[in-house]
């Protein structure tokens, strides 16, 4: 006591690893309940059709089948549609147009994979076999599978409520000022970009195990979720399963999410409904092909953007027009992603006095699109960083120098698109990144590559993002259906060990470690004496889960503030124990002391006394030592960084090899560098995957062509390089710890860095992602 080294800020080994590394993790599919039954969904093989007769008779006769439930029965259940949690208004003031979205379709299907019935059986095999026996008549309708086709005047309309398939036509910024600046510009750079559609591919498929206890009228839902409390609230208040105290949601170990497990999906609703109807616990784990078809996809924008510059190469305006594909239905945050977490980041790291963005979203006969790692910010970063790079090359200026000339240098800085950046030092990470990659030696390396018949290029991606979204009142004004604070509860046990309850959810982010590090330091105890509890709505009172890089700046700040309350109360108790005035007690390194006495008390000693309550007046101070905080961040925080990529292209085949990759990020204060590096690495590979490998491709019939690992190209270990990761630090001012979110940065800075490097290598203006070998080969061939 009193002499433990500080844990926070150190690369403490992960506390979650001993169980995960021995196969003792408890993921949803690992658990079987008494009387377990399994669900298999009957899914539409057709992208757009009216549903005719659904014949379940053969399925019902299959051995082991407990029940077959159809969309028509679901429609009669009284349960409500899946809903979107964020209201966006079009620029004319109209609310967004939302069509029906039942958990089981009974009238019409709008994408391949949409569930129309569920079979519940004694075994997984029986359920799957019987699901094949459900006969559904489909009356096929025309299909639109991309956003441009959906906009055509004669395009088939998916939802009657959304003429022209348009959900909203939204804008932000000052159009007139931007027009004027464009007219007066010395130079205008224009570019058209496609931000490719991605499949999240968490390696644990989505999984649900729902049960209903009739004697207590209570549901228990085991589910692989990033947001168990948010899900419970939705199941109760939106879907209509009854009051929240009648639903328990448990998300124990969860095998990755990247956004895709933050939403309310049909399968959760249907399994709960079926569990009650059939009186058996109902379990469903997605087959990978179902994951491809039904996990909400990411990105899928088509954007035209113009950047105006004056004669001194200062950026004067940015004009952006984006068409975003929402898929067949509005997913939980589907409306938010292309608006307030996209267009609000279009200023990037640059002082751009005038910005205007128009975003039109449309429904198509494809899987719904929602937040995927970065969610809007990678799309914004890609627009800005591609545009800046092309502009620099058109102006004949070094791209790094052009960026430097236009960096924001004073903070706080209010952009024309809603955000006020509180802190940052953009030049610091640019300079450090260029130094780390040895930009000075690049030309020599380029020559060496050329001598071997290879083309070498260097590309920069400077990104800024907005993490830890808040404050809640502001989000409410912008259309959010929920608040985005976070809660923490700290329970100090009589022996001085501590349990921390958080509403954030770890599915790889190491909260059990990083959170414990802070708490250990705050109380002067060992990291091993701190247990982090999360992921069970019966244990944690409320929370908003983990996404949007909020767990550090928001979730841990709530814990930090709860620690303040514990210390304040413990100091009062210590004053009685030490027999000194309360205002003389201090607490440092795990010891309570006072200038009025030489006596000192350890944290555990005071904890024990808090519970024995023998030595202080319980009329003034309640016994016990437990505190709760709800922290609502006063603003977003703004992680930023510079990623630099060096590629080597084989012009004969078009193969791009990443020769070097440097990422320098400003995440403010860092809790566990080893963990944060891992977050960066993972994000980088997802970004590199987007830039080089990954794409969800549909054909004109709305069939997903890249619906398996045979065709959807996941980054593998031999596709990617080692990374050189560094940090700079400016403290965030919007949370007490000075932290900035680190979970998504890697996926934001890397795509433009890779594409800029390829364009540099080939001497071309643009190439769309993913820059596959054939595309690159064609670019080489036409550039030659």
């Amino acid at each position, binding site marked *: 006591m009193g002499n433990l080294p500080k844990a926070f800020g150190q690369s403490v080994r992960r506390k979650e*690893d001993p169980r995960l590394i021995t*196969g003792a993790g408890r993921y949803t599919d690992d658990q079987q309940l008494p009387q377990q039954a399994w669900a298999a969904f009957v899914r539409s093989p057709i992208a757009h059709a009216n549903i005719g007769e659904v014949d379940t008779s053969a399925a019902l006769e299959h051995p082991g089948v407990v029940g077959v439930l159809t969309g028509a029965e679901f429609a009669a259940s009284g349960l409500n549609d899946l809903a979107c949690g964020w209201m966006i208004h079009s620029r004319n003031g109209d609310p967004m147009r939302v069509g029906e979205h039942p958990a089981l379709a009974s009238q019409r299907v709008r994408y391949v994979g949409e569930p129309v019935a569920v079979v519940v059986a004694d075994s997984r095999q029986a359920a799957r076999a019987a699901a094949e026996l459900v006969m559904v008549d489909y009356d096929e309708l025309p299909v639109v599978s991309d956003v441009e086709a959906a906009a055509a005047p004669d395009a088939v309309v998916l939802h009657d409520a959304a003429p022209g398939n348009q959900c909203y036509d939204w804008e932000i910024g000052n159009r007139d000022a931007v027009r004027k600046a464009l007219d007066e510009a010395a130079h205008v750079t224009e570019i058209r970009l496609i931000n490719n559609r991605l499949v999240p591919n968490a*390696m*644990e498929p989505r999984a649900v195990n729902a049960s209903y206890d009739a004697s207590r009228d209570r549901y228990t839902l085991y589910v692989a979720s990033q947001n168990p409390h948010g899900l419970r609230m939705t199941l109760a208040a939106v879907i209509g399963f009854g009051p929240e105290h009648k639903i328990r949601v448990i998300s124990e170990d969860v095998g*990755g999410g990247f956004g895709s497990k933050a939403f309310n999906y049909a399968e959760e609703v249907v399994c709960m409904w079926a569990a009650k109807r059939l009186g058996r616990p109902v379990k469903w784990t997605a087959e*990978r092909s179902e994951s491809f078809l039904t996990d909400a996809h990411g990105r899928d924008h088509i954007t035209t953007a113009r950047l105006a510059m004056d004669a001194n190469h200062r950026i004067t305006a940015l004009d952006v027009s984006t068409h975003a594909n929402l898929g067949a239905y509005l997913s939980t945050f589907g409306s938010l992603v292309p608006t307030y977490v996209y267009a609000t980041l279009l200023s990037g790291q640059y002082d751009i006095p005038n910005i205007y963005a128009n975003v039109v979203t449309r429904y198509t006969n494809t899987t719904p699109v929602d937040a995927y790692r970065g969610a809007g910010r990678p799309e914004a970063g890609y627009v800005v960083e591609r545009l800046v790079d092309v502009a620099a090359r058109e102006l004949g200026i070094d791209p790094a120098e052009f960026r430097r000339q236009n960096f924001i240098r004073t903070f706080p800085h209010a952009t024309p698109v809603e955000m006020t950046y509180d802190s940052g030092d953009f030049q610091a990470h640019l300079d450090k990144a260029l130094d780390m990659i040895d930009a000075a030696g690049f030309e020599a390396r380029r020559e060496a590559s050329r001598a071997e018949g290879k083309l070498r290029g260097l590309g920069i991606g400077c990104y800024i993002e907005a993490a830890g979204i808040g404050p809640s009142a502001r989000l409410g004004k912008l259309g959010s259906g929920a608040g985005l604070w976070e809660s923490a509860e700290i329970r100090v046990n009589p022996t001085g060990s501590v349990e921390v309850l958080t509403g954030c959810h770890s*599915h790889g982010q190491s909260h059990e470690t990083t959170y414990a590090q802070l708490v250990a330091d705050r109380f002067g105890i060992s990291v091993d004496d701190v247990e982090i509890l999360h992921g069970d709505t019966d244990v944690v009172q409320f929370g908003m889960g983990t996404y949007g890089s909020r767990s550090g700046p928001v979730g841990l700040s709530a814990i930090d503030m709860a620690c303040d309350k514990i210390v304040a109360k413990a100091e009062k108790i210590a004053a009685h124990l030490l027999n000194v005035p309360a205002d003389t007690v201090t607490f440092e390194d795990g010891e309570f002391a006072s200038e009025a006495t030489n006596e000192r008390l350890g944290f555990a000693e005071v904890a024990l006394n808090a519970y024995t309550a023998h030595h202080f007046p319980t009329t003034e101070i309640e016994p016990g030592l437990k505190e709760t905080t709800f922290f609502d961040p006063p603003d977003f925080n703004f992680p930023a960084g510079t990623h630099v990529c060096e590629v080597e292209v084989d012009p004969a085949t078009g193969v791009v090899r990443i020769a070097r990759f440097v990422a320098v990020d400003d995440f403010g204060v860092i809790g566990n560098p080893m963990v944060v590096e891992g977050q960066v*690495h*993972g994000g980088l590979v997802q970004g590199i995957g987007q830039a080089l490998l990954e794409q969800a491709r549909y054909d004109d019939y709305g069939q997903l062509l890249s619906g398996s690992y045979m065709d959807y190209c996941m980054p593998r270990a031999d596709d990617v390089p080692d990374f050189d990761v560094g940090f700079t630090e400016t403290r965030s001012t919007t949370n007490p710890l000075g932290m900035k979110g680190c979970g998504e940065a890697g996926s934001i800075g890397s795509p433009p860095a890779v594409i800029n490097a390829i364009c540099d290598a080939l001497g071309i203006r643009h190439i769309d992602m993913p820059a596959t070998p054939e595309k690159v080969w064609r670019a080489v061939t036409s550039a030659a």
Partner: protein
Amino acid sequence: MSKLHVETSINGEAVEFLCEPQQSLLEVLREELDRTGTKEGCGTGDCGACSVLMDGRLVCSCLVLAAETSGHEITTIEGIAQGDGLHPIQQAYLDNAALQCGICTPGLVVATKALLDKNPNPDEETIRYWIAGNLCRCTGYDKIVRAIQDAAGRLAHPA
């Protein structure tokens, strides 16, 4: 189509079970034998999450019929640790933070064991090619490669 009687060895222990012909080794491990450490990521042999050793060779247990294991020796993640302690490979993964969500980790640890049993001192290119059959969406592989190098060192020079 009657059940098949299979006698095999799992993690050094003689195991007998009955299975349907269409049950995979993975399915039997997880659902009949309650050894849930081995995970299913794709079910089609493309992701490596279900990797186990069959007679010391790395295989996807989702593509091995349970019936095929008759007379063979199977090692799963549950059989890697030595007694109560972690295997040096597991310790190296832990020390290098080579896992995040942990779902692919059992397969990768098994794949690492298969590699280092065969090649105690692999270079980075060999490591990356060896684990190319194991998808990880969290770590970006960097720290996994570091952990495998570290594990090779530990096994070569036990502390």
